[in-house]
């Protein structure tokens, strides 16, 4: 029986042990994570701040993936009439109804924008919540800087919400899950909150920073002035813009100025240049495509062009025409660019193998840094072949985007991230505010609250730079067809790189603006030409109060240009279309008594 006894004792002992150790036994700590108490070191606080910055890229959030970041290519530029979604009808079909200005409140891409932006805010708030508990080793200066950068970012994210959704619930570090977050209504104006955070950042941030991607004092100043401008507080905006222009420098210490060549703004080697007031930092090969400009991945030509995918973001006919200049080199401010022979000659409906002669009229040279057109050099990828690189010309039109497209040279030097399904990810920073924008905003403040002459100077500064960079490579003929066929091969153009690619004529405004109204028209048109495709125009049109008139005219014009237009049933209704609907998901969760839907939806 000895064995049995031994076994019994062992059995009993193990049972007793399991029982006696039970409390410990049922405590299983999480792995691969940390608690917020562990983040109060300097590295932890800095890392929390990095996480808040990282949401600027949108990080491919949402079911559809490309609409959450602060690039606003879709929300600012497509809705602003500078481009259409592009590609074909079925691709990312959920945004079709948005670009036709009648989105459903349940639209998933609208939700993605809302969610990504609030994630940025949540990250700022999480940081500000632990900042008071910073460990003793964190210096007061670091704490102040971290707080100021965080508040700069929070102001940026709320500015995004304000532009897209008008008023949304204001959540700061004092509110959280189970601490009343579900009770905050959207009945309070966000502007004072945005201003306060930018002001704190402006007052507390250093002029230069240890890393070029950080917000500095002057970025905060410029952004605060922009917020003032959006509220029509022109005098205050003017004062602040003047200060920024007088003393401003980038986080890496470069005095604000314009990059000498307009086209160089979109070269990776030129990231964080003197014009980069605040930009989303991008880098290829960091181990994630989310650092490599993920919002833009679809916005490359199709079928053989650089990246090969996916044909989104095709500039509009109307934008192309806008670059027409008159004999003196000034834009057609009377709107006549959309009529008769003023319209650009395009290859819409012209087969790849058929003869096409590009437009020969006067053009602002910025067109060929902004729009990919048939037979014009497409950066260093050779001449754009027209329809061959367009996914569905009947739907999206003849143009391809050109800003933010990488060059072969950049690809060769590692600027393109090839770790994912398409090489449409790259290290090109995306401007949130660049100095030319500051000049034009300052000009606007001057027009509304100061001097037309100063405004004209600012506008001309921008135009002077535009004139300094023309694209070379004129179409002079075609290679012959392969024998035995005879005749020219229209898919193989011959360019002469010693000649300008088009007939570029651009001059400054030399005659003083006759009135505030005249100055306003010139300024607004200059913003369109200078900043096209950079996610700005829609908000400009709305704040100027001209969105309905401008965009309905745009829709009427565009609709007639292609056979299967995405705008067939589009119309802009003000004030409804001025803002996106509050996502239905949020209203369903918080109820209509907390979250009021925007008018018209």
């Amino acid at each position, binding site marked *: 029986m000895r064995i049995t006894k031994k076994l019994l004792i062992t059995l009993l002992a193990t049972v007793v042990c*399991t029982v006696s150790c039970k409390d410990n036994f049922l405590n299983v700590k999480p792995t691969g994570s940390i608690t917020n108490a562990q983040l109060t070191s300097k590295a932890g606080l800095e890392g929390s701040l990095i996480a808040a910055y990282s949401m600027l890229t949108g990080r491919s959030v949402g079911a559809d993936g490309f609409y959450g970041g602060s690039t606003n290519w879709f929300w600012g530029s497509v809705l602003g009439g500078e481009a259409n979604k592009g590609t074909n009808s079925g691709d990312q079909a959920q945004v079709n109804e948005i670009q036709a200005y009648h989105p459903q409140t349940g639209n998933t891409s609208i939700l993605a924008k809302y969610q990504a932006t*609030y994630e940025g805010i949540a990250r700022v708030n999480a940081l500000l919540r632990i900042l008071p508990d910073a460990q003793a080793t964190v210096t007061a200066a670091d704490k102040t800087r971290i707080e100021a950068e965080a508040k700069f970012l929070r102001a940026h994210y709320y500015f995004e919400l304000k532009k897209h959704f008008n008023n949304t619930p204001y959540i700061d570090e004092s509110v959280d899950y189970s601490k009343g977050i579900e009770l905050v209504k959207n009945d309070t104006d966000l502007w004072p909150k945005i201003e306060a955070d930018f002001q704190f950042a402006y007052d507390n941030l250093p002029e230069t920073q240890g890393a070029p991607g950080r917000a500095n004092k002057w970025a905060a100043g410029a952004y605060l002035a922009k917020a003032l401008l959006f509220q029509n507080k022109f005098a205050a905006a003017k004062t602040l813009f003047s200060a920024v222009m007088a003393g401003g420098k980038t986080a890496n210490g470069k005095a604000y100025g314009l990059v000498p060549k307009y086209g160089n703004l979109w070269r990776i080697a030129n990231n964080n240049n003197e014009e980069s007031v605040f930009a989303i930092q991008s880098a290829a090969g960091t181990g994630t495509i989310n650092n490599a400009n993920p919002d833009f991945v679809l916005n490359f030509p199709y079928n053989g062009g650089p990246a090969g995918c996916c044909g989104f973001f095709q500039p509009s006919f109307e934008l192309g025409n806008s670059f027409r200049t008159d004999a003196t080199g000034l834009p057609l401010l009377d709107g006549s660019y959309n009529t008769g022979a003023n319209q650009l000659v395009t290859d819409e409906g012209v087969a790849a193998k058929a003869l096409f002669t590009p437009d020969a009229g006067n053009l602002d040279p910025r067109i060929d840094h902004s729009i990919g057109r048939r037979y014009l050099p497409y950066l260093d990828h050779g001449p754009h072949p027209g329809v061959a690189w367009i996914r569905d010309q009947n739907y999206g039109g003849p143009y391809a985007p050109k800003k933010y497209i990488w060059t072969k040279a950049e690809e060769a030097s590692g600027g393109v991230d090839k770790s994912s399904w398409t090489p449409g990810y790259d290290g090109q920073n995306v401007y949130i505010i660049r100095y030319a924008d500051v000049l034009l905003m300052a000009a606007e403040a001057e027009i509304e609250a100061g001097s037309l002459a100063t405004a004209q100077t600012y506008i001309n500064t921008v135009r002077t730079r535009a004139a300094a960079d023309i694209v070379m490579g004129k179409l002079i003929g075609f290679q012959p067809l392969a024998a035995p066929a005879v005749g020219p091969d229209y898919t193989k153009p011959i360019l002469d790189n010693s000649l300008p690619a088009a007939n570029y004529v651009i001059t400054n405004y030399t005659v003083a603006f006759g009135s505030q109204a005249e100055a306003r028209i010139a300024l607004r048109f200059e913003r369109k030409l200078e900043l096209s495709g950079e996610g700005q125009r829609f908000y400009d049109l709305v704040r100027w109060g001209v969105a309905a008139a401008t965009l309905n005219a745009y829709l009427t014009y565009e609709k007639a240009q292609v056979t299967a237009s995405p705008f067939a049933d589009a119309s802009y209704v003000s004030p409804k279309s001025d803002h996106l609907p509050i996502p239905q998901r949020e209203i369903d969760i918080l109820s209509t008594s907390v979250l009021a839907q925007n008018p018209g939806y």
Partner: protein
Amino acid sequence: MKLYGRLRPIVSLLLMLTSTALLAQQANVSGSIIDENGAPIPGVTILEKGTSNGTNSDNDGKYTLNVSGSSATLVISFIGYKSQEIAVNNQTAINVSLVPDITALQEVVVTGYSVDQRRDITGAVSTVKARALSISPSGNVEQQLQGRVPGVTVITNGQPGTTSQIRVRGFGAFGGNEPLYIVDGLPVTDTNFLNPDDIESTTVLKDASTASIYGARAANGVIVYTTKKGTRGSKKLSITVDSMFGVTNPGTGQKMMNPQDFADWTWNATKNTAMQLGVPSDSIKFTHPQFGTGTTPLVPDYLLVGTSSGVTGSVDLAAEKAKYNVTDFSRPIYQVVKANKSGTDWYKAITHNAPLFRNTIGIRGGGENSRFYFGLSSQEQDGILNTQHFSREAFRVNTEFNILKNLRIGENLQFTYRATHSLQGGNGGQGISGEESIVLTAFRMPSIIPIYDEFGGYAGTRAPGFNNPANPVASLDGGKDSRGFENRSTGNLYLEFEPIKGLTARTSYGGNFGSSYFWSYQRRTYENSENNSAVSYSEGAAQAYAWTFTNTLDYKKSFSNLHNFDLLVGQEALNTGKGRNMSGTGLNPFSEDRDFVTLNTTAPGATRTVGSNYFKGVNFSSYFGRLNYSFNDRYIASVVVRRDGSSRFGANNRYGVFPAFSAAWRISSEPFMNGLKSVVDDLKIRGGYGIMGNSNNVDPNNQYSLYQTNVGNSSYPIAGTGASEGYYRSRIGNPNARWEKAVTTNIGFDGTFLSGKMDIIVDFWNKDTRDLLFSVPQTSENGLFAAVPSVNVGKMMNRGVDIQVITRGKISGKIGYEFTVNGGFLKNQIVALSPGIIYLPGDPGFRGINPIRNQLGRPISSFFGYQVLGLFQNQADIDAAPTQSGVIKTADALPGQVPGGVGRFKFADLDGDGKITQADRTWLGSPVPKFTGGMNFKFTFVGFELESYMFLSLGGKIWNQSKWFTDFYPSFAGAAISERVKQSWTPTNTGATIPIFENVSNFSTQSANGNSFYVENGSYFRMQNITLSYNLPSDIARKISMERLRVFISTNNVFTISKYQGMDPSVGGNADLNFGIDVGNYPITRSYTCGLSFGF
């Protein structure tokens, strides 16, 4: 026998040491056991009643047993035969002739922690015969439960080795509804390692009365597998060999348009659009890179010659060959692709007849004090997709030794190698139906594209005009050298001790150790319109270990043969698995030579990424007890209580107590039933009530607020290059979550009628789950990246009826028949979410369409969207309808707008506000079948046996999302078009259900709006199996030195009757809030098998 031989000295020694334990009054009984034909039956259990003292008959049917005294009673039982009880009464030789078990209600059932007589069970239990599990050539045994067990829903697909959606009595929670699997007493989370030929019995415990002894993890039912054991005291080895060979035929794919029709309908799309816009037919501009610009499309001879597309005429192939380039990516790719005018059948191109082999050798035997079973098996099976392969090699050892007369030690252990190559779809293959799988790609590739170009490279959508499907043959080929496999050791070691009569102490320690490894290659593609731009290579490994330690005491006592008590108490501690995994990925190795490529040889730098994680599993600590009482075999009652603690919950609510009560009344034993004796052999009424706990659907970290760093989620190149690390909130904790509770009630009848010719088992059941744990939808203001905690708020209702009817008999002398019907009715409904919430947002999106809404008052995973009333027939129809985006009323046309939109969907204005808005979306059906069942026919004639098995699923709906790709031109303009489109709406074909075929999408037709067009009837009937087998008569078998010999031929999935338009109505998906959607389902197709089974 060798093993026993080696162990014999040890056993003898032990016996000598403990000989004092042998009691003088013991009696010795021996005998032989024969079947109805007089043939000996090996493996019969002979048990001394009220004890666990027992033995098994040997291969000659002989047994010897020492019983405690001459007044002992023997219980003789064997699966398939009626159990018998025989009093010893001083006999020393007892020969028994077993009678076939004509009633299923007499069998022995392995439940809870014990083995019970079916007739004493008070709860809801079903059993499945071993043969049923081994007959079909599926990879995983649980797939074979489909239609075999009333109340069990099985949704699966055709991939060998796929996981399936197995649900016992509905869907109790919003997730984690998988049943608990018990293999030889050890809880495991899956059974894909089991070889069907090793399984002795399968039992499904369905209600709290039976399952709650397993407590916390049993709320979704328990499936108990017992593997084969040896036979104590057998004189010789019994060796069985089971072999199966077969082939699965992929069948035919969906009908897609041939090249000429495809071109014509591309033109029709343009014409129809022009009609809608009021463009006169003579001014329509046709343009397509392949079909030209004429008023009739021209099918070209070559799709691609270098950069030219739509080439007609001949091409100088010799000259072109010099320019050919598909390997040097620094130069432009140059291909010549000929149009396949006869049409490529892409489904055929990616599939093949898939062979199957399964072989098992089982060796069982035993000595006086030992028994063993060795099972060695191999299953090698191809999937119908070209490169798919499943293999499972298993080695099982089950042994048991008597150390003392009243002390036994035993183990059940299996070593398994398992590999599923090219398994498609997430969640172990289960998710495939909801994914844009390679099966879908086959229906997106236009038939005009050939598989290969003129010089041996792949052809594809690099030829412009066909949008972006990727050549699926190339995709499969690209992964053909990728591999993944797992090695697994699963089993337990136990000790059983009987210190006094009727008391059994058992301790068992079980473990499950698994390790896995994979490597995979992805080629750099050139043939597609959208190509991946790098060669990539990944490699990784994982290991995990789970354990369970169980201790029970079981005391059986009978008073004056009227009062029978059975008390079981126990303790259990377990860990669900701790382990680690790691993997790496790199790009562009210098050479793609498989002998060269490792992670080290991929390009250095940040594109070479690594990842690892570590998990500790969940700990459970439990105590439980069960008391069974029966009076005079007439009144039976059972009480179960279990207290569980789990590390998933915070200290406040860690423990839950879960009781269950049940009782049964054998009404047929009552005197007043005597008059019905000729009709009613046995009738028992059962009732049970109980509460089970569940914690499956809550993250182990639910109680903690956590922060994380992740390069994709929170890094940022703040310095302009590289990436700085960021920390973000990843989880908000809830320390107060507590156990989910499933309250079950069950009322059942077990009856045997007409002298054993008919068994009827009926159960009415109710399962209400409350305190359901789920992540209550939170406002996005909390941040999207922080998982919100589960809180106890939801309620779910499941109700059903389970029916099993078995009739058996003989038609005329030699022809025997058996007819079994199993059926389960199920009603599932979400009863409560959190206050103020009527649905769960965040439902899955499919190209912008969100078909599912888990909504209050509806079944789980229900479909939601606009109700299609029909198609707009004319402008007057549009003008009279509510305002709807996508069509323009005459009165609403803006300047420059043409009113129109005929042939598009007309939606129902459910809120009657005259506009079609989001508020008009409604419930469109549920994928949960209302009834699933099976029918089994068996006829026997002399040695022949004909058996067929049918499955029926009624009342489920399917969301056929694949139609979005194949039936609408603008979804991906240029991709393949379904033959169905020829029936689409035109001004002359007004009875159509498919809308007008246009080249623009809009709200009304095909844009990102779910509507009832996609919802189809998912009911189906499937003839799943017909088997003809022949058993050699045992006397002839003996002449060739065999115990038995059986040969069979069989065909599976013979035909399916269904109205469903997709490939296969068996549509699963990622459970549980997201299934029933068919994007690219993998069909279950016909297979033919034959086999041989013999023993000697």
